């Protein structure tokens, strides 16, 4: 009898918590790279030169700013079973293959959502994915197919490539929840609306792998988390 009573009270509290606007803080910070910034390596364009050379191509696998800020790092809260699902936006996120380059280089999309893959280059591209959990895709996108919507159901880290233009490289993060973000060109990031508590923060970069850090989020306001990748051997 007593236990049922306690349970009832707990349930009631939960219900109240759900009803009122949740208490939440933000995780903000900057990712830096401890090693020397690599000189931007230009990529030789060997095919469809006219279209592909409309933009300069440099190796984007490790982009470090002058102040060591590291771009394109995916920062997320690990093991967060009560994190809210990432909302599926009304307008699908886009992946543009403009000038034979994936824009953006690293992108986070919600699981169960659709990605619009754009081809306005007027030439053939072919989107080739190397997923862990979703079915692989090797789909040609000729000139006449300017938009190709593809749905991604399962959380994943997916390498993107184009077999026509072998230098094209990008990443797609299919996020299971909303507590995912990607660092900007200066290495800064912000994960918003995180429920208070102690968490493990994971951060991943395509060539440097995954690192973790501990973070405690307060009921409101920002908690600062400055993250570093050790120099690559």
């Amino acid at each position, binding site marked *: 009898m007593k236990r049922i009573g306690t349970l009832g009270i707990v349930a009631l509290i939960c219900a109240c918590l759900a009803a009122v606007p949740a208490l939440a803080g933000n995780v903000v910070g900057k990712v830096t790279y401890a090693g020397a910034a690599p000189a931007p390596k230009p990529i030789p364009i*060997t*095919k*469809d*030169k006219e279209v592909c050379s409309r933009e300069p191509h440099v190796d984007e696998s490790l982009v470090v700013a002058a102040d060591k800020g590291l771009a394109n790092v995916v920062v997320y809260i690990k093991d967060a079973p009560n994190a809210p699902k990432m909302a599926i936006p009304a307008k699908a996120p886009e992946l543009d293959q403009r000038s034979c380059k994936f824009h953006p280089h690293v992108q986070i999309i919600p699981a169960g959502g659709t990605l619009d893959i754009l081809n306005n280059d007027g*030439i*053939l591209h*072919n989107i*080739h994915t*190397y*997923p*862990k959990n979703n079915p*692989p895709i*090797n*789909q*040609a996108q*000729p*000139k*006449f197919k300017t938009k190709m919507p593809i749905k991604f159901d399962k959380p994943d880290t997916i*390498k993107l*490539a184009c*077999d*026509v233009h*072998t230098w094209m490289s990008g990443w797609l993060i299919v996020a299971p929840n909303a507590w995912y973000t990607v660092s900007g060109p200066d290495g800064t990031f912000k994960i918003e609306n995180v429920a208070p508590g102690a968490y493990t923060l994971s951060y991943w970069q395509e060539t440097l792998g995954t690192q973790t850090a501990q973070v405690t989020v307060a009921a409101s306001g920002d908690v600062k988390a400055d993250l570093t990748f050790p120099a690559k051997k």
Partner: protein
Amino acid sequence: MPAKNEEYARSVPLLNMVFALCSLGLLLGTLWMVWDDYYRSWRPVQRQFQALTAKHTEEALRQAEQAVNQEELKKIQEELQAVETRSKEKRKQLDELNEKRKRNTVRVYITDTNFKNTKSVFDAVRFAYEELAHQHSPRAAKKLEELHEVQKKLTEYKLANDQALTEQAEIKKQTEALVGDRAGLDMKRQDLLAAVDRLQKKLDAVAPKGLVMRAFEHVRNAPLLDFMAPDLKVQQVVLDNQNKDINFVTIPRVDRCQTCHLGADQAGYENDPQPFTTHPQQEIYLASKSPHPVDKVGCTVCHRGLDRATDFLDAAHWPDSPEQQAQWVKSHDWHPKEHETSPMLPSRFIESSCLPCHQGVVHIPDAKKWNHGKDLVERVGCYGCHKMKGFEGLRKAGPPLTRLTWKTDPQWAYPWIENPPAFRPATWMPRFFGLSNNSSPADVARTQQEIRGMVTYLFEKTEPGGFPKLPGTGDPPRGEKLVTSVGCLGCHAVARLEKSPPSLRRRFGPNLDGIGSKAKPEWIYAWVKDPKAYFPETRMPNMRLTDREALDITAYLETLKAPEGWKPGIAEADPKLQDELVKDQMRARMMEEEVEAKMASMSEHEKELYLGQRMITRYGCFGCHLIQGFETTPPIGTELSEEGSKEVDRLDFGFVHIPETRQDWITEKLKNPRIFDEGKVKSPDEKLKMPLFNLTPEEREAVVTVILSMVKEKPQMASTYLLDSRHKALEAGRRLVQEHNCQGCHLLDGEGQDIRVTIARQLMEEGLGEEEADSRAVAFSPPYITGEGARVRSDWLFRFLKDPTPIRPWLSVRMPTFGFTDEENNTLLKYFTALSQSDFPFETPPVQPFPPAEIAAGKKLTSTDYFNCFSCHQQGARKPEGDPSGWAPDLALARSRLRPAWIEDWIKDPQKLYPGTKMPSYFDPGSFETSGPDDVLGGDENKQIQAMRDYLLTLGSDRSGS
């Protein structure tokens, strides 16, 4: 006077007593007999099974009841109840309607009969009229009149019948309006409860309820009465086409196993304990539609044991593991059945029963362990010393030793023969020395002289000559790149490159470890350039290496040295011991004086040679190697062709305590081939000499499975698996595929492409993530060729197999030149077409000119504005932009190389034909109708694909691509 009382020889009361006792004894004896005959161990087992079935049925019944839509059932029942109530209330009206209905039924019957009768008259008159009219007979007019008459009548009856039927419907409607639709509701209720009713009936049958029924059960199973219709009875299948040899006479098998194994052929007992468990893989075994239906194949053909037995011990069950044995001892007081020549096979060896019926195939479908064992027997070369049916005509398992000086030197050969795995742990060469019966100091001293003799013999009996000096020096890193990329690793392994143990197909060629300490660089160079020049029968193909490449590979292989601690060198000569050994050998063959005379006439070297020759004879080296002087010597081992039927008492278990079965003996023999010498006093020549093979316990079990499968008994033709011409073509091809290890590189017949792991490894070393490396490795490995017969034209394939040319520009791995004969080539062609179920052998390419408009559309679709095929595909001399690693096959070859139907299937959905191909999908199989461009050929995807196919077929000339 004699007294009136008669005289008896014996006392009557006593005799009465004796008779009484005798009859009582007889009665008791009879009762005991009946009881003994009646009480069998299988009866309680069958009772248990009935209880189990009842339990399952009750469970299923409960589930079925739960599955019933109770709400709907309640509704129907309520409605039925309402119908009932209303019928009672409106009794009078209902009776009236019923009365009406009865009258109407009569009316319907009469009108219907009238109509039908008249219809047949009408048909007859019409026929008669038509005949007359056709003959222009004057009687036709009269007949027509008659016809009209009958037709009028027919119409009348039809009308009457219709009216009656309308009335019937009306009455039904009125009844329903009055009380409700009882029949419809009943039907609905039955539908709802169909599963429940069926299960209830089944339950009533297996577990009768009520006193009478239960009493009946007892009576019909009672002793003496059970001849009529007992439900407990011996279950048997008589297999008159599966005879059994019981010495001098063959009798049909009568399998009574299902007397206890009652659930074996029924689904639903998968999780029940034995003897009731459902036999696994019903789609293959026991089920009536499976290839092994129980009423044709039975049980003991595969499981062995005594077919007619109905008792656990009597059937000769045999445990599969010590745990099972302990359990059986507890539950059945198990012990080996005395004098049983064919006890059951422990389940781990069950696949040894497949072979008698599945003769003449390379692999037996689904018999994984047996297939593995067969591959191992071929690899280790058991057939070199033991004659084995089914392994005749195979090449010797080891390399020829007739040009040994060209390849290596005695300093290497001596320690190699003494202990092969010390030099190369993963070698297939077995070990003869340093084993349990020849390791004492005296044995070692003796065997050292024996090996010296063999080495001397082998290096003396060698063809003179050698290979020329290397034309330059190679670069080891470049050589390593070649070895890991051109395809060597499809058949060879190198320990330092491996992350996990290589598969059997990657152990097809010798492991390359230590090759640099073994072979001379000149030999390696000559060998990799042209293997057949040194060893015409080798399976190693020609990789078409340039001089530069061959030099680099040689330089790399030279870096693969012997393991640390391994030393080349030969044991000291011991002339005194050698003399003794030589004499021992001579004494067995000649008189003492002759021995002395012969010894006196021989030099030390001649004695060494003689000893070597004797030892090669003794150990049977020529079983696996071609050796001068032993070209025709018969093999030295026991024939194994009927080893699986060999009487156990003919196997010498010596003083070794293991279960006395064939499988235990053979397993032990493979584990330690000299073990049965333990405790015996033997001269060196009498000792066991089978060498120790480098096999894991799993591999040993697989080999034992194969040896056990070689039995004397031949099944009747009717039950063997006969090959039709398509399967014969398949098996002949599979034989060649096996002999050339095609599956080391290609995925074929659902198996193979073992080289892919090495390519994925390579890609990961180049920096790719695991998923990407695994995925890309599919495209960067040699192609899948299961569908080759549907893909390419036979004439093209014939030329390609003779002289391969690169098709896929992105591949570093090369299709080698195997040097197939015409016959082999044709066998492979037949195999590929049989595998794809395509037409054999040749077909004309489409010759009629295609409609120009279609070709124009096809050309447009392949252009940059549409599918842009030539962005990656070559077209004869026109090459795509970029690096050749990004190019795709030459479409100018399509006409001579590809089958038109395949081109169509390929464009439609390449991933379906070749999961993981580099070719992207243009049409979406999920939304095919909308996935092509809308402005060509009216947006019809099928027409678009055909147009592209036809356009591609116009490219190139007939003769290109040879």
